């Protein structure tokens, strides 16, 4: 039951992220919508996976996914945004 609820909330976060991607006016605002809301959706879905599969291997994989997403989403956001702001030095 709580697994289904967490999965539904995570999917709703993804829906909010994609609607924000469609409706926000600027590239910077779109980066904001894509990164934050989808990271929250991944957090909820991974929590549901950790509750559904309580074996140690599955919990390890889920934790690795969560740490990877929370480390790499701001880095990807920063790579796109820094490319948008300043000219590159070649």
């Amino acid at each position, binding site marked *: 039951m709580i*697994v*289904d*609820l967490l*999965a*539904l909330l*995570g*999917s*709703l976060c*993804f*829906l909010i*992220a*994609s*609607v924000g*991607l*469609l409706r926000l006016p600027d*590239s910077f605002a*779109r*980066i904001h919508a*894509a*990164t934050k809301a*989808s*990271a929250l*959706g*991944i957090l909820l*879905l*991974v929590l*549901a*996976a950790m509750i*559904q*599969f309580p*074996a140690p*291997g*599955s919990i390890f*994989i*889920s934790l*690795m*996914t969560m740490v*990877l*997403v929370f480390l*790499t*989403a701001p*880095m*990807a956001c920063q*790579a*796109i945004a820094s*490319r*948008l*702001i*300043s*000219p*590159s030095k070649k």
Partner: protein
Amino acid sequence: MLTLATIILGLAVLITLFTPAVAKGDADKVIVIDILSFEVLGLCILLAFHDENPLPLQFGLLVAMLGFLSTLVLSRFIKPPKP
């Protein structure tokens, strides 16, 4: 309820794929690829719930890694603004 979650996530994927028709720019296409990798990761986790098998979680980890690398590489191709 799991079916509803899958339908909502599929709708999110469709809306994301429709975005380049509205937002015409190099950076917007890279953002679309970034968020699509996260959505495919979510679909992998929902597939694990549906099959009651933890194997697709490992596919999700790989998809997250590949999405990050592809975003980093593709962001090199964004044209910077003229100073």
